[in-house]
């Protein structure tokens, strides 16, 4: 079975020290790759989903190189991956409920009551019922992040890519985001594979992130 995520000689090259990242992300693990803003680490999620082309190398997602797929096929494939972009990427003119329902309404044949059932469960799980009918501008950063995560998990993907997911969150909220992204535990580890990119990881979350790497001067180093 293919690894959920493979970075094969992916060139970042931003800060003069042209970094090349090769990393296998194993299934059922939470893996983080840390690096400062200039390292180019923040682009790995975009490279994985073929939202941007890396200067070199390739990324395999669930065994598939999205950059090589035709556009329609790449769009359809992305529904198999949960993606939480930096910030939150919520549509400002939709309520949190409609934001969470959007991928299901647009990308599946589910009926409206079916979608409503799933969103209601997600809202309860993320404690967002009281703000579900508000727009992103009307809620706080934690609630926006949780809503964006719920949207990323709409199709219950096996792989989740999180860009700077804990920025601006309290430790409690950050832990909640991570646990929801992991999706519970199975015999093999986390139910989902979680790939986290960002400048830092809160200390209290380290035990829940099995593999931790940091990009230092263009080299990938495992963290103790």
């Amino acid at each position, binding site marked *: 079975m293919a690894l959920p995520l493979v970075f094969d000689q992916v060139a970042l090259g931003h800060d003069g020290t042209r970094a090349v990242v090769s990393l296998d992300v194993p299934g059922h693990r939470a893996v983080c790759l840390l690096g400062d803003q200039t390292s180019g680490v923040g682009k790995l999620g975009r490279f994985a989903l073929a939202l941007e082309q890396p200067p070199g190398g390739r990324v395999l997602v669930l065994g598939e190189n999205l950059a090589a797929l035709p556009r329609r096929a790449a769009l359809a494939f992305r529904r198999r991956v949960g993606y939480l972009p930096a910030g939150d990427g919520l549509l400002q003119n939709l309520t949190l409920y409609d934001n969470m329902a959007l991928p299901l309404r647009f990308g599946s*044949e589910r009926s409206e009551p079916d979608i409503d059932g799933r969103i209601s469960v997600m809202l309860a799980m993320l404690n967002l019922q009281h703000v579900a009918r508000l727009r992103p501008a009307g809620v706080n950063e934690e609630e926006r992040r949780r809503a964006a995560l719920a949207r990323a998990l709409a199709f219950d993907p096996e792989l989740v890519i999180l860009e700077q997911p804990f920025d601006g969150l309290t430790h409690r909220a950050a832990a909640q985001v991570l646990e929801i992204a992991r999706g519970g535990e199975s015999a093999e580890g986390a139910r989902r594979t979680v790939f986290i990119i960002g400048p830092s990881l809160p200390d209290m979350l380290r035990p829940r992130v099995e593999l931790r790497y940091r990009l230092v001067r263009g080299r990938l180093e495992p963290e103790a």
Partner: protein
Amino acid sequence: MVAPVAVIGSQVARQVARVGALARFSFSAFGAWRTLPAAGRRVARRVLLNQVWFTALQAVPLVIILSSILSFLVISQAVRELGRLGATQLIGSLLVIAIVRELGPLLTALVVAGRSGTAIAAELATNKVMGEVDALEGMGIDPVHYLVLPRFGASIVAVFALTILFDAVAIAAGLLAALANGMSSGRYFDIVLQSLAFRDAGLTLVKGLVFGTIIGTVPSFHGLGVRRAATEVPIASSQAVVGSILAIFLCSALFVAVS
């Protein structure tokens, strides 16, 4: 000696490339309805209705005011001046050619471009700057399907419908002007109906479709063309309106040349 020529050449090449990119974007937007997934149609239809509300229905009062004032002024003056010359039958030609065929579609398109063209460009540019377009792509939703296609459809519906409204109000306001200047309603309608040919009505509606297409694509192109800076949003809005108005006038001139 060579440097100024090189600068002009590169500017021209850049503009030509931009027009080419706009043409490609327009064709892809036009063809996007064919690739819209069945499930996405329901969502796109909802966005389309929203856009029709903003673009067409909210512009109705402005179109009625503009059309009635324009028609009242033109017909009042025409009845007075042409009446002195005994050529009141020319009022029909004036109303049909000047207002129904030329100014109706043109002013309607300018109203929609000014009201909604800026809004479309600013909204899409903000979507881009806020990372919402990338988020849509990341969810497997084509931004052209979700953002562009409904606005494109709504602009066509809006300009088409508002042009019909503009012309109907112009004829009605012309009647009031004629009555106020001593012409009977029977005579007014005789003159107008004699001058109004099926071809005029058809040409007006074709113009509505073409201008609607321009307003649906040019602002979307400029809006989605921004990169990541908020300062690009007003620039995109301005370019969208200028580009739309320029294209509308060029097409209007082209219609006159070929018809």
